[in-house]
């Protein structure tokens, strides 16, 4: 790595040549506070919190965008700089609805932490302007309170750069600037896919998902309800972060313990449904390959992606797998097979999904996800809401005993676990499909080409003499890039995995929120994904079709993958959507 020698606070350091001052300082252990900066997608120098002094510069410069050069002398913490940061923050706070005690982000707010760190102990300016905007809750999923918005534009950047959805941006100007949809339309009336990346990007409480924990409390306390819960693959590497454990810690065995103590009657693993998805989707792929069906086949696990396709690629709807998502399959099995087997009235079963996702909240409301007229899943909670349930119930999460999911629907293969990372569904499907096609054990079981943090990955595999081209995209901007190449004929694939969120579910809109001071310098998604791959690698059961629960499910109920009954219960349809209303 080429370096340059610069002076930081009077000491000399060798720092990477292409670094910004922010990166250079961080590389030698000096943190400069930031608010608006998001690595790669929001380097706009707008919040002015990261100002530093550079010898010879006319005024303060913003460390997040200013490149280093040989011989540069930087001061990051002079009294003038500290005063400047403090005053800027005081100004920002003067236009922020400071209801910290009752704010959803209290304790995990970058603004709050900064106020403490910079020593802002009073706000001298008129703060009556901090309550000017109505709360935008038209979607019932993503809630925006512009009174808490500090206009860092991180939400705008993720919506545009990561997702290429770009339904929000700054409206008006100057002091009246606020983030909203074009022409002040409701979020529900524009092609927002509810991916929730904006929430994860927000440093304050200006964006959050609609809290539905009360619905779950009610059900748990309703003696007529049989309340079952399923936990998504990535949740096991998410939840530890809420309770002070290192990022990526796998707490799978604490989850059943917590859920039982919350009062759930059935405590299940959606990874089992992920295995079921592989059976159905793998069969669909094989059928299409054999019978000249519509190719490429595109995965359907990610509801943000499904909605995106319905808005922007309706012509590709026939390519999308008709399989319901693992969450919906889980709920559908609960209200059919499980209800029959254990003697419950499906109407009395209340299904809760715990998901790294906000788009799942949209999915559960879709009519096309219903099973026998009932919603497959009644409430879908994010990891954050789940953490709130645990806190509210007074559970000492880290001290809970290790427990297992209920065996009725609680055994999963490693293939099911890796669903939570980009490329995981693809790899899981390949493990099963390869074995079916070749009739021989799939060895090795790992498909490294489709793993990793790249936004688009492609590979070609020989499956019993057939060359199968596959591609994996995560983040909708990458999906768009890939699909445009498919549409233009530039690329030909047989099977494509698409996840709406960058990095897949480990980077989902319902994940624990890490501050930018962490995400700018740590690949949080990769660390979480590593936790899933590690679990998979340590397992004996690594292929979906070997899962005994799945085998029993087909033996006793669905007969075989792709059966008539499976289609009735586990498959669905999609619809083209008008972008603007």
């Amino acid at each position, binding site marked *: 790595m080429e370096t340059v020698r610069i002076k930081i606070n009077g000491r000399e350091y060798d720092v990477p040549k292409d670094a910004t001052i922010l990166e250079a300082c961080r590389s030698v252990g000096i943190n400069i506070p930031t608010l608006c900066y998001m690595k790669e997608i929001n*380097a*706009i*120098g*707008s*919040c*002015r*919190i990261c*100002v530093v002094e550079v010898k010879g510069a006319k*005024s*303060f410069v*913003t460390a997040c*965008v*200013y*490149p280093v050069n040989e011989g540069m002398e930087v001061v990051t913490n002079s009294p003038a700089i500290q005063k*400047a940061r403090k*005053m*800027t923050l005081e*100004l*920002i706070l*003067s*236009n922020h609805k400071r209801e910290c005690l009752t704010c959803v982000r209290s304790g995990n707010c970058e603004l709050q932490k900064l106020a403490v760190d910079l020593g802002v102990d009073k706000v*001298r*300016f*008129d703060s009556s*302007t901090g309550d000017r905007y109505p709360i935008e809750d038209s979607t019932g999923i993503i809630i925006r309170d512009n009174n808490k918005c*500090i*206009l860092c534009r991180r939400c705008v950047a993720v919506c545009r750069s990561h997702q290429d959805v770009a339904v929000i*941006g*700054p409206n*008006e*100007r*100057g*002091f*009246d*600037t606020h983030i909203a949809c074009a022409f002040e339309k409701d979020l529900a009336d524009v092609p927002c896919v509810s991916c929730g990346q904006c929430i994860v990007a927000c440093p304050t409480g200006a964006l959050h998902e609609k809290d539905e924990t009360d619905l779950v409390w009610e059900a748990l306390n309703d003696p007529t309800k049989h309340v079952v819960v399923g936990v998504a693959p990535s949740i096991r590497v998410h939840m530890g972060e809420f309770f002070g454990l290192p990022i990526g810690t796998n707490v799978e065995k604490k989850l059943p313990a917590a859920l039982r103590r919350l009062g759930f009657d059935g405590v299940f693993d959606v990874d089992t449904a992920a295995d079921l998805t592989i059976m159905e989707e793998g069969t669909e792929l094989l059928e299409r390959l054999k019978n000249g069906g519509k190719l490429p086949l595109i995965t359907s696990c990610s509801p943000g992606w499904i909605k995106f396709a319905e808005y922007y690629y309706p012509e590709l709807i026939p390519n999308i797998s008709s399989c319901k998502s693992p969450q919906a399959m889980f709920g559908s099995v609960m209200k059919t097979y499980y209800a029959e087997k254990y003697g419950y009235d499906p109407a009395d079963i209340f299904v809760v999904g715990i998901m790294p996702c906000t788009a799942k909240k949209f999915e559960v409301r879709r009519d096309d996800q219903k099973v026998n007229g009932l919603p497959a899943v009644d409430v879908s909670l994010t990891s954050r809401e789940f953490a709130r349930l645990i806190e509210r119930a007074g559970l000492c999460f880290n001290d809970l005993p290790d427990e297992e999911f209920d065996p009725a629907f609680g055994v999963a293969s490693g293939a099911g676990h890796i669903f939570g990372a980009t490329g995981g569904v693809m790899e899981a499907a390949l493990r099963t499909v390869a074995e079916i096609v070749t009739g021989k054990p799939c060895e090795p079981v790992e498909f490294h080409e489709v793993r990793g943090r790249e936004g688009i990955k492609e590979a070609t595999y020989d499956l019993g003499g057939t060359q199968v081209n596959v591609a994996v995209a995560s983040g909708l901007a990458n999906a768009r890039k890939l699909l445009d190449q498919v549409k233009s004929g530039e690329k030909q694939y047989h099977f494509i995995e698409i996840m709406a969120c960058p990095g897949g579910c480990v980077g989902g809109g319902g994940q624990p929120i890490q501050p930018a001071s962490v995400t700018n310098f740590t690949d949080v998604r990769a660390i979480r994904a590593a936790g899933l791959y590690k679990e998979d690698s340590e397992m004996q059961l690594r292929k979906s079709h070997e899962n005994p629960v799945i085998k029993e499910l087909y033996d006793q109920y669905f007969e075989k993958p792709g059966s008539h009954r499976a289609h009735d219960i586990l498959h669905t349809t999609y619809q083209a959507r008008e972008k603007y209303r």
Partner: protein
Amino acid sequence: MIRSHILVCGGTGCTSSGSHEVIAELNKEIEAVGLDKEVKVVMTGCFGLCALGPIMIVYPEGAFYSKVKPEDVKEIVEEHLLKGRIVKRLLYQETVEGDDVKSLAETNFYAKQIRVALRNCGVINPENIDEYIGTDGYMALEKVLTTMQPQEVIDVIKASGLRGRGGAGFPTGMKWQFAANAVGDQKYVCCNADEGDPGAFMDRSVLEGDPHAVIEAMTIAAYAIGASKGFVYVRAEYPIAVSRLKIAIEQAKEYGLLGEHIMGTDFSFDLEIRLGAGAFVCGEETALMTSIEGHRGEPRPRPPFPANKGLFAKPTILNNVETYANVAQIILKGPEWFRSMGTEKSPGTKVFALGGKITNTGLVEIPMGTTLREIVEEIGGGCPNGKKFKAAQTGGPSGGCIPASLIDTPIDYESLIQIGSMMGSGGLIVMDEDNCMVDIAKFFLEFTVDESCGKCAPCRIGTRRIYEILDKITRGEGEMEDLDTLEELCNHVKANSLCGLGQTAPNPVLSTLRYFRDEYVAHIVDKRCPAGVCKKLLSYEIDPEKCIGCTLCAKNCPVGAITGELKKPHSIDKSVCIKCGVCETKCKFGAISKK
């Protein structure tokens, strides 16, 4: 054979006072008396003396008629054109000396002016390229394309010392050099015609009066830096400028002076107009480029600088209209000629738009280094109605107030910065004793609060908080601590804002605090507005000694605050009075005064 030319101003000022009607009437009357083969009416750009519009000048006599109405035209035609008798009553009175008529150039308004950027304004028909060519137009381009290397062009501009006339005064030659040195498959030349300072209209006048000067200079700049494409970013509120620019671009293309293979050489340059929607911040270079790119007009952090990564991330130069208007003449007459005007560090001339409390409002072009006194007292004719000069604001809302005590300051880049103001684009607003300086500062801040783009926190929130404190003071609710907060806040916004808008927005406050602190203190401590402007601190009173009870004031009071019996002294109910001042203006006996 044409024996007489009548030049009528077709600039925005005279157009709005009816010059087109005057032209139509002139043509009609001239034809009626059969002089249409001998007298030619030419619509030109701005003369500068906008306060006197519609303006016309009749050559060869050089008779300068002002405030001409269509109904005056018949008299001018019959008396002046037919009988050779100048119509004295319509002359600009400064040009009348006894029975003689002085040349316009001898009047106070024009005597000290040297017109370089404005040389063709008011002289040629801007919609006819032949007239531009007739005044040496496109000769500089020819010289550059046929006899000079690009670097030589840059060297000439550098040697001239020409500095950006848009406000910051960055050396133009250096800017060109950076862009010439930058590596890029495509480079751009842009013109900033987004003149946003309230009251400034020199760029508009150049585009309206001499659009080819800008086109020629941009083509020269393109040759110098190796650009093949250019944009003029002009605000949509300048319809006349836009239309003349469009005509000029078309004509230049027709003549082979723009487009492919200019003048038969290998050099090609294409020029397009982009309309701005009127945001002040779009005059900032990176915001302007962002706007041309089709995005919300907001500034970007620098580096990268536009010379390396500007429009569409390609090497770009951006100069303003007035800067370009100097270029062709520097090429033709040489850098020494340019340096012979102005000061050593600020060579050349500068156009100023005189406005506010000054007799001769309008446009003047003077050598740099001319003192404020010369501009205000000699050229501008001082404050009207014998009022005392109090201060002048240069640089528009980004500049500062220069107090009367500094009236002998030479106007150049350095001197203005030193006293806490700036050149800006050349707006010069004069204030007299009736102006309250706190109110003036508030006025400018109101503008910047409104025009802040909202991207960076210090400007977006800081300017608003500054405004709120000023408003509090003008309402008589200020406290002395507010002055410290105000100063701290102003310095903070200056030092921490992302772009020039925020970095200069506090200047009007800081300069008035510096030179007129006593006025702030009077508002805060004495709860009094010394100039009698801030309504909350005023009260109107009727002097019972002078009031004869005519009832006129009571009849005209819009809120019924004045009561009294006929022929008996009236009185004002202060709890009802809205301090509109109508009573004072209506009273014929001087009985009502504000305190």
